[in-house]
Structure formats: structure tokens, C-alpha cells
């Protein structure tokens, strides 16, 4: 079920209202706080059993969206359907949507067993059934021996897993996760990313993961929605978002980019020549779904890994026809193992980031004259938004 090949399209694209393969459908959902429009008509469907992330900068409305799905906020407009049924007006304790809170919100006055059993007790299950279920879920999260521990005796990663177990024991239709990795240190966060993905596979439940950390979203998700200022900019697989962003915001937000602003000098609609504000000519290809006209103000994004850095003497050999080429001097070298990078200062004084492979033998050094070469296909171009 995972890695579901069905691409997610905006809900309006096809009107299958009660399609049971969607665990969650949001139709044009909006939320206003007074005059502030926190969420502005967002629509999406999430297929059963997939890992869906909502990625956006803080204050983009993603938490409000999640709270509406959980039932803590009432939408100002639109509809939310879980398993095909509208849940508008259904109080949070009657929705089969469980939530892992940002700070987990484990109950400190109960031990692990009681924390997990709480939801089952609320549902009115018998004692034996609860005992079996709790021990079963503890087995599944690979913590069979912690039932009698107090919450403060657990490590950060264990708390995380207990918070997920507490929800999963209730067999929710959808599990919401609100940046639960934010409080963990880097190493544990990396480990938990993989673990969350594995847990999602294991439980085969739809996970909706809210985050502002793009690496969390890209690594774990089947599909990611990029949210900005209350709207979805793009929904797609991590690869689509990374390689074929629809908007300048997505191109700049997902992954690292070098960014130039410029004016189009010659264009055939899908590609052409542009002159940057620094006066450098550059060839580009239009971003997905964009038509770039002559004279348009544009932003151009080039990812560091697509820029090849070579010593100026060797540049002519590798630069193919139509490639962009820029000369400069290595300003500094940011060594980070496989993710090493050089900062190159060009003739016009700007700094360009480029990924390099450092082998430890005859490597580039600061102060060397180099040429930067990249294909026009990798120069993604977007018409400038007036507000940007």
C-alpha cells in the first residue's frame, strides 16, 4: 500500500465524493481568525495507508489545518471527510482521528500502561481486552518491558514511540503528527525519521505529518503538500517537488538553491536567455507549467548539486553547447564529508554555492580560479510574483 503510485490531485479535479480509498478528504477548507485568514480554501485527498506531509514555514496555517482535522477548531468554510463521511460538527472525542502532539502530551501522572490504556478505557473496553491490546501494541513498537515505567523514566525516543502507540492502539483512520520530532536532538531525530516511516509501514495507517523541516518531509513521505500563507502551493511526491517545482516559493523552500533575478531577453515560451540583474547572460528552461515571455521579470533557481565546479583551465572540455558558464574564485570551502560545498565569488561579487566531491587528493582549494558550469535544463525559471 505504501509508495502508492496514485498521484494526489486537488480534490476538485475528480468528484468521487465517497471513494473509500481516501481516508481523508478536505474540500475547500478555510479558517478565519477575525480578519486573519489562516487557511484559505485548501483541498486535498489522501489515499489510504499513505504517509502525507504538510510542509511549510512557521505561521503558514499548517497547525490550524491539522487542528481542524482533529476537531479542535471549527472550519469557517469547506468540508472535511474521513472515510467518506463528513465530520463537521463532530466533537474531537468522537472522531477516529488521533493526534501526536508537538510536545507529545503524555500524561505525567500515569505510567506507560495507563497512558496507552486511557483511550481504550474511554472506549469502554473490558479489562482483559485492554491488557491484551496494550501489551500487543508495546510489542509492535519494540518496547515490551516498559509498561510499568513512569513517563519521566523514558528517553526522548521512547516517549515518542509511546505517544504513537497510545494513538495506534485505538486503530485510528488517520494519525496526525504535529512536528513531534522538533524537541529531539539531531542524532535522535535522524533515527526517529526512519523509525516513523517503519512504524507507518507496520501499522499501515494514514499518517499526516506536519513539519517545517523539509528533510523530515522529504525522507518519510509518499506525498508532500507545500503550504504557504494559508494555501497549498503544490502537492506531489518528494521527487516532483524537488525536481519540478510549480512555483518560485516551492523551488526556494524545498532544497537549497542559488537564486538570481533577471529579465528575459529571448524566449520561446519554455526556455531562452535571460540577463540577470548583475548583467550576466544565462540560459534557462521554464519551471513546470510556466510560460515565460520576453521582457518578463523572472527568478532563476539552480541547485548546488547541478553546478559543476572545475578549474578554469579544464572548463572548456566539459562545458557542452548551451550550458551556462560563470568564472570566479573559490571564496571558501565548506567541508562536510559527502555534502561538501564551495562558495565561489564571481566577477560581479556574488557568492554561488556549489556541491563538490572531495576525494582528499588534488582537491579544490580556496583562492583557486574556477569555472561553474550548469545545464540550462537545471536553471528553473519562474515569473516574478509582484509581492515577492
Amino acid at each position, binding site marked *: 500500500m505504501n509508495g502508492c503510485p496514485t498521484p494526489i490531485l486537488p480534490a476538485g479535479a475528480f468528484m468521487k465524493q465517497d471513494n473509500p480509498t481516501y481516508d481523508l478528504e478536505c474540500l475547500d477548507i478555510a479558517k478565519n481568525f477575525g480578519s486573519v485568514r489562516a487557511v484559505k480554501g485548501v483541498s486535498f485527498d489522501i489515499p489510504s495507508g499513505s504517509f502525507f506531509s504538510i510542509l511549510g514555514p512557521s505561521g503558514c496555517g499548517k497547525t490550524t489545518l491539522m487542528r481542524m482535522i482533529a476537531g479542535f477548531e471549527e472550519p469557517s468554510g469547506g468540508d472535511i471527510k474521513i472515510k467518506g463521511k463528513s465530520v463537521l460538527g463532530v466533537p474531537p472525542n468522537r472522531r477516529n482521528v488521533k493526534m501526536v502532539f508537538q510536545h507529545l*502530551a503524555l500524561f*505525567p*501522572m500515569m505510567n506507560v500502561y495507563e497512558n496507552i490504556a486511557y483511550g481504550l478505557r474511554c472506549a469502554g473496553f473490558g479489562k482483559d481486552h485492554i491488557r491484551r491490546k496494550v501489551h500487543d501494541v508495546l510489542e509492535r513498537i519494540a518496547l515490551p518491558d516498559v509498561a510499568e515505567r513512569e513517563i519521566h523514566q523514558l528517553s526522548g525516543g521512547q516517549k515518542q514511540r509511546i505517544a504513537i502507540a497510545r494513538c495506534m492502539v485505538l486503530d485510528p483512520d488517520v494519525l496526525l503528527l504535529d512536528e513531534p520530532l522538533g524537541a529531539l536532538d539531531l542524532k535522535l531525530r535522524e533515527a526517529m525519521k526512519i523509525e516513523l516511516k517503519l512504524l507507518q509501514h507496520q501499522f499501515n495507517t494514514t499518517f499526516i505529518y506536519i513539519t517545517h523541516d523539509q528533510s523530515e518531509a522529504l525522507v518519510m513521505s509518499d506525498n508532500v503538500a507545500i503550504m504557504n500563507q494559508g494555501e497549498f502551493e503544490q502537492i506531489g511526491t518528494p521527487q516532483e517537488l524537488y525536481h519540478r517545482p510549480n512555483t518560485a516559493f516551492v523551488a526556494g523552500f524545498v532544497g537549497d538553491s542559488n537564486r538570481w533575478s533577471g529579465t528575459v531577453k529571448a524566449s520561446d515560451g519554455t526556455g531562452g536567455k535571460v540577463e540577470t540583474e548583475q548583467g550576466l547572460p544565462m540560459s534557462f528552461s521554464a519551471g513546470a507549467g510556466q510560460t515565460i515571455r520576453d521582457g518578463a521579470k523572472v527568478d532563476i533557481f539552480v541547485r548546488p548539486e547541478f553546478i559543476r565546479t572545475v578549474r578554469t583551465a579544464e572548463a572548456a572540455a566539459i562545458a557542452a553547447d548551451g550550458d551556462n558558464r560563470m568564472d570566479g574564485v573559490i571564496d571558501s570551502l565548506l567541508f562536510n564529508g559527502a555534502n561538501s560545498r564551495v562558495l565561489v565569488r564571481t566577477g560581479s561579487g556574488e557568492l554561488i554555492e556549489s556541491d563538490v566531491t572531495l576525494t582528499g587528493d588534488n582537491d579544490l582549494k580556496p583562492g583557486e580560479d574556477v569555472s561553474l558550469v550548469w545545464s540550462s535544463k537545471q536553471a528553473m525559471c519562474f515569473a516574478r510574483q509582484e509581492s515577492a
Partner: protein
Amino acid sequence: MQNKDIKRLTLILLFAPFALWILLLIILPHIGMVVLSLKEKVAPRVYEYSFANYLDFLHEPIYWNTLLRTGSMSLLVTALALLIGFPIAYYIAKIAGPRARGGLFLLCLIPLWVSDLIRSFGWILLLRETGVISNFLLWTGLIGQPVEFLYNDAAVIVGLVYTVILFMIVPLVSTLDGMDNSMIEAGYNLGGNGFTVLRRIIIPYAMPGIVAGCIVTFMLSAGSYLTPILLGGKNSSWFTEQIYNQFITRFNWEGGAAFGMLLLLFTSIVIWLGLKLSGQTLANTVAKS
């Protein structure tokens, strides 16, 4: 070396007022009370050490009945203060906005700006036979003749709850304030209804504050003098009144001292029992808030 001496001197100077206060106003008087309570007057100006004053208390039912009555009524006052104070504290800590919170808290404090005497007098104005409530009921025709609302147990309890409720609200607000809102939301999210969330999550979380508030209000209520006397009249039968009578009316300092020690012992036992029953300790309740 010199630095260390200065540190020590600072510590002593800072600690001195506290130590003096404890020693002169708490420990010394109590030692004096214990010594005094163990003396028995055998002849004019002749005293012997004995437990006679304590035996007097046991032999005279009116004394220990008064003590039990004071204890049980104080427990009732504590329970009422908790029942009324909890929703107020919950509103201040969890529902009111950050700006309203300060104002509401201040409103709770206002009664403390007025002396005990004036506050009790306020209740007298309301409750007496020619008071506001009686006159109002006469005017509406609900009663045919003036009714005396003062000088009964209900008046005493109302007055005491009013006096002590602030001391219930303050620790409750501070514990509820420390509770993450998402914990309450998690309680609902996992399927609990309002009552379950209150019983399984909010109350257990607030338990240290509840116990701290209960201890303070119980002590204040059992040890109060003015309110029971003014609102309950001469027959309010509050134990502090017995102590007063022994010291002042009967000039029996030995008996009064014994009663004082008994009240202290009694309230301590009640609080110890309360802590045992609620599974809390002094360290995580009163000391915490």
C-alpha cells in the same frame, strides 16, 4: 579564603532574620505553651507538672465536642472552597485570555485589602434581621416578618468560605497554569468526554495544588476566631473561642495553653491523614506552589 568568609557572612546575614523569626515567634512561644500546658495549679501560686489540663479536656464533653465540631465544619468549609474555587481557578488559568487573567486574579485579591473585621461586618449588614437580604425578602413578599440569617452555622460557613477561598484559588491557578493545554486536548483526542478528561487528567494533574489549597484553607478555617464569633455569635462553639475563654475570661493560662496545643495536634493529624489518603507529600504540594 577571604571570598569564602564573605560568602559565609552574607549567608548568615540573610539567614538571621528568618532564624530570629522562627525562633522568637514560632519555636519559643510553642515551647512556652508546652511547658505552661503541663503545669497544674495545686494551690495559689503553687504549680506542679502534670497532664491535668489535658485530662480536663477529655473529661469535659463540651470541650472535645467543640474541637470535633470545629474540625468537621472546617472540613466542610475546605470542601466548599474547593468546589467553588476550582472552576474559578480553571477559568482564570485555562479559559481567560492572558490580559483578563491578571485582572481576574486582582479581583480575587481585593477582599484581602480590607480587614477581617470589615469583611465580617459586611456579611452582618447583609444577613442580620434588619439587613439587606431580610428587607429585600420582606419587600418581595416572600417572607411575612424579618428573618435573622445571622448567628447560625450556615452564616459561619458562608463567612469562612468567603475568607479562605482565595488561598484555595492561588495554588490551584498556579498548578493549572503549568498544565500544557495539549494535555487536555490529548484527553479529548483519545476519546475522553468532558467528565473523563476532568476526572482522569485535569484533577490528577492538579492534585498537588488541590492538596496545598486544602491544607492552607483547613488550617486558616480551624484557626480563625473573628469570623465564627462575629457571624456565629456567642454560641458559635468554635474551638478558638474556648481557647480565648480559658486565657482571657477564666484567666486559666495553663488550660488555654493545653487547648492551643490540642488544636495544633488535631489539625496536624487531620492534614497528615489527608496527605496519606490523597497519596501526596508536603514536599510536592505546599512546598511546590
